[in-house]
């Protein structure tokens, strides 16, 4: 069990948590014993159960500690299976969390939710403004993970989190795929899961960058023009992916853009393939603008190189409202696993609704 703090009232408890560096700078819900136990009970798991180790502080993430973060973030107890899955993903060695937290790059873990848990453990928004304010599950689940990274992983700005600027997604960064609006099979099925599975995919990435494309159903080159626009937004010589020639990135297609690609006969795989081709960049630019990193091609300066090692390193999902925009999120591309995405199946079999507590 964790140690307890004492305070005369919730207002003073909040100031104490701020002073101890246990918050993200915003007010938190005070994690009283009753509230934390409620979340642990709802998870159906033992509070002492270890979910993993979070770097760079190498703190042990138990269900109890994660429940504490979930309470502080404002989660309903219903969200616990998603928070737990996100923490498990962050703790996987291939996520390289210690390096991700410590880097000077702005990267933040984006939580993507697929499958039935979008509703049963949410609802996690996938439509208009899914990455913006107003969606409790998106806001608090992402924030719960961040509070775990701070209080269990020890990621504190300027001390152990050396991001030069950070980005607003470091407060919270979570959305669901709009599977019902997508013309393609859900993203998690391309990652080896069944459609009926609930899956959390974690990708350390930059803030979303909007890509405008005004489509035209009469234009036979509509899909190709859209893919070109997306590739320009996704990768240029200012991005880590282009300079390191590694890492992954996310293309979050708006449903309208997804349908432009689908009606031209594209599949998820063919979109990834074409985007990979279009994100081949000039070696001459890498040499000229890549600084110390630009040495990679000096002995062979002709032609192009791929910014992404394989097409599958460009993740593709569908979310957002209906309009002329899609989003792209490049990433860092560093550490031993080159900033890979990690997916974890959501386990909600043990989840218990607590009678009389209304899920809050």
């Amino acid at each position, binding site marked *: 069990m964790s140690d307890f703090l004492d305070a005369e009232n919730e207002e003073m408890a909040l100031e104490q948590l701020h002073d101890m560096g246990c918050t993200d700078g915003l007010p938190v819900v005070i994690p009283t014993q009753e509230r934390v136990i409620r979340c642990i009970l709802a998870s159906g798991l033992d509070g002492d159960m270890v979910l993993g180790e979070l*770097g760079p502080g*190498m703190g042990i993430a138990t269900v109890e500690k994660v429940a504490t973060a979930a309470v502080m973030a404002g989660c309903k107890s219903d969200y616990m299976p998603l928070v737990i899955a996100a923490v498990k993903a962050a703790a996987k060695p291939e996520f390289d969390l210690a390096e991700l937290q410590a880097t000077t790059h702005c990267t933040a873990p984006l939580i993507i939710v697929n499958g039935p848990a979008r509703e049963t453990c949410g609802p996690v928004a996938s439509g208009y403004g899914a990455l913006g304010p107003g969606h409790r599950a998106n806001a608090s689940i992402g924030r719960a993970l961040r509070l775990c990274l701070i209080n269990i992983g020890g990621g504190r700005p300027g001390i*152990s989190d050396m991001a030069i600027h950070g980005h607003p997604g470091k407060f919270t960064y979570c959305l669901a795929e709009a599977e019902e609006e997508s013309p393609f099979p859900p993203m998690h099925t391309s990652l080896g899961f069944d459609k009926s599975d609930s899956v959390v995919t974690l990708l350390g990435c930059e803030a979303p960058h909007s890509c405008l494309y005004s489509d035209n159903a009469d234009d036979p080159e509509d899909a190709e023009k859209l893919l070109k626009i997306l590739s320009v937004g996704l990768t240029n010589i200012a991005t880590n992916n282009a300079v390191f020639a590694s890492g992954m990135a996310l293309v979050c297609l708006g449903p309208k853009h997804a349908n432009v690609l689908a009606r031209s006969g594209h599949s998820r795989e063919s979109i990834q393939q074409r985007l990979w081709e279009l994100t081949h960049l000039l070696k001459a630019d890498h040499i000229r603008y890549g600084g110390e990193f630009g040495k990679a091609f000096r002995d062979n300066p002709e032609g192009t190189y791929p910014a992404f090692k394989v097409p599958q390193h460009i993740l593709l999902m569908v979310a957002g409202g209906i309009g002329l925009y899609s989003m792209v999120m490049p990433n860092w591309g560093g550490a031993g696993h080159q900033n890979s995405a990690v997916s974890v199946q959501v386990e909600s079999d043990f989840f218990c609704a607590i009678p009389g507590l209304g899920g809050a």
Partner: protein
Amino acid sequence: MVSLITEDFWDQGQFVAKSLGMPNVPRVKLPHPVAGLGEAKIEIIAASIIEDIINSFANE
């Protein structure tokens, strides 16, 4: 082993060393930033810390 750590990353180095169970790992402090200074300035920095590096090895 001696870690070379720039001034701005000194606290981070301490944090990571402690969390990895190596709180006393030898470290030498460099000015910040080092990247992009050009060879001439790098050589000046190198000259200013070489003795500290050798001493750190000697004390291991």
